[in-house]
């Protein structure tokens, strides 16, 4: 990893840390949502069933939101231009962002996961470390996706509109409510192109069926491809304008 990537990551982290209210929200928001989700499903069995998919969805949601907005701010406040005329590469900028914000995405993931396990006492199977590794992968996809889509928003207002546009359809089509195989044919087909589908599939396999990372190689591979794809596309959006 280049020192430029680390410099960008360091600055991104510093920015969040120096803003107390943001830090507080990053910690409180997942707690509130996990609580609401937990108590809205009083049936223990149902909660055990729903929890993995809810987790995957929230990781994507939070990761997308935090990176989308921060990267957009970088564009609108002009600091992105300053970085673009500096010697660091576009890939360093995107990768540095990713690395910095991933820290907070992971923090949120851990908060939600341990809250569900210890406070809502959901049952799960599978290895703890494998579950965490897979959740981290979902977080990486979310962060890459947020960086990419921020290129298509001119302001925060538009960025917020991307949530119903990009995230909500994934929630309905990823198998959170209905298994993808039971969706109408066209929607089932669409669901195959959405990252959350593989996030939900993989995390269910790990937490409900007690499978290992090796068993869900396909989901891991596809999610990694999504992450790499969004990362490359995001750095392409930083091209010289003509």
């Amino acid at each position, binding site marked *: 990893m280049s*020192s*430029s990537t680390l*410099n*960008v990551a360091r*600055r991104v982290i*510093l*920015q*969040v840390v*120096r*803003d107390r209210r943001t830090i507080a929200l990053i910690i409180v928001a997942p707690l509130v949502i996990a609580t609401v989700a937990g108590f809205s499903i009083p049936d223990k069995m149902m909660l055990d069933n729903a929890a993995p998919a809810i987790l995957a969805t929230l990781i994507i949601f939070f990761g997308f939101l935090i990176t989308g907005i921060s990267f957009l701010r970088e564009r609108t*406040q*002009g*600091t992105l*231009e*300053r*970085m*673009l*005329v*500096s*010697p*660091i*590469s576009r890939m360093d900028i995107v990768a540095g962002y990713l690395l910095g914000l991933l820290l907070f995405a992971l923090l949120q993931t851990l908060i939600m996961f341990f809250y569900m396990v210890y406070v809502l006492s959901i049952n799960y199977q599978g290895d703890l470390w494998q579950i965490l590794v897979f959740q981290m992968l979902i977080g990486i996809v979310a962060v890459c996706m947020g960086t990419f889509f921020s290129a298509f928003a001119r302001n925060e207002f538009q960025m917020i509109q991307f949530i119903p546009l990009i995230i909500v359809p994934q929630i309905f089509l990823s198998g959170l409510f209905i298994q993808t195989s039971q969706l109408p044919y066209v929607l089932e087909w669409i669901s195959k192109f959405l990252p959350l589908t593989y996030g939900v599939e993989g995390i269910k396999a790990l937490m409900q069926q007690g499978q290992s990372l090796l068993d869900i190689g396909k989901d891991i591979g596809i999610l990694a491809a999504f992450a790499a794809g969004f990362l490359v596309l995001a750095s392409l959006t930083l091209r*010289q*304008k*003509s």
Partner: protein
Amino acid sequence: MTDAAIAVNNLAFKYGALKVIDDMTMEIESGTSYGLLGPNGAGKTTLIRLMVGLLKPAGGNVLCLGKPPTRSMAKNIGYMPQLPALYSELSVEQNIDFFGRIYGLKDSKKRWERVNEVIKVVDLWEKRKTQIVNLSGGMKQRVSLACAIVHQPSLIFLDEPTVGLDPELRVHFWDYFTDLTKAGHTLIISSHTFDDAAHCQRLAFLRLGRVVAQGTPAELRAATGNKEASLEDAFLYFIKHDEVKENVQ
């Protein structure tokens, strides 16, 4: 030709159908201060963005230090955008330190020495630990300048650096700019004030994306044919001339 810091050849740029830079040609010698003077919308910012490589020309070219502006020469270039582009949660010194880092000042002791030095140049020593959100507009402008020069670039682009500064600081800034050119740095400064213009060694008057006149302040004043003419008179003279030419065509 050899010691031209910047050469602009038949440069053209459009935003959609709007011609913003129209067949512009100019040469800027190294070690001089060059002023880009023009009304709002004349194309000053667009020209600077083309010069630093943020925009791609629709026609013609820009050579910075003999080459099209690319990342390989970025460490020799400093760019202060028109609006202070800073990280509002970070402090003055954290902002400057970040730009020092990405410009490759790796040695942390030397970098901090330099950061402290530019903080003193922009006279913000007491405010160095203050977050940007808590600064006044003129102070932000000063931090923005500090970020643009922390890596001691030889070519410095300043987009309206004196806007919002009080008179005392303006004088202080111009003293500093003069020192920089004496030390061999090249400064490209956009402005609409004639106070700034008078300080520049050479000027280009811009209107609607074209250079309507260029030369030293004295040359431009003399060109009006009126011995008493101020730079402001000269500017209005050339703008009028250009308008007349346009109407004839």
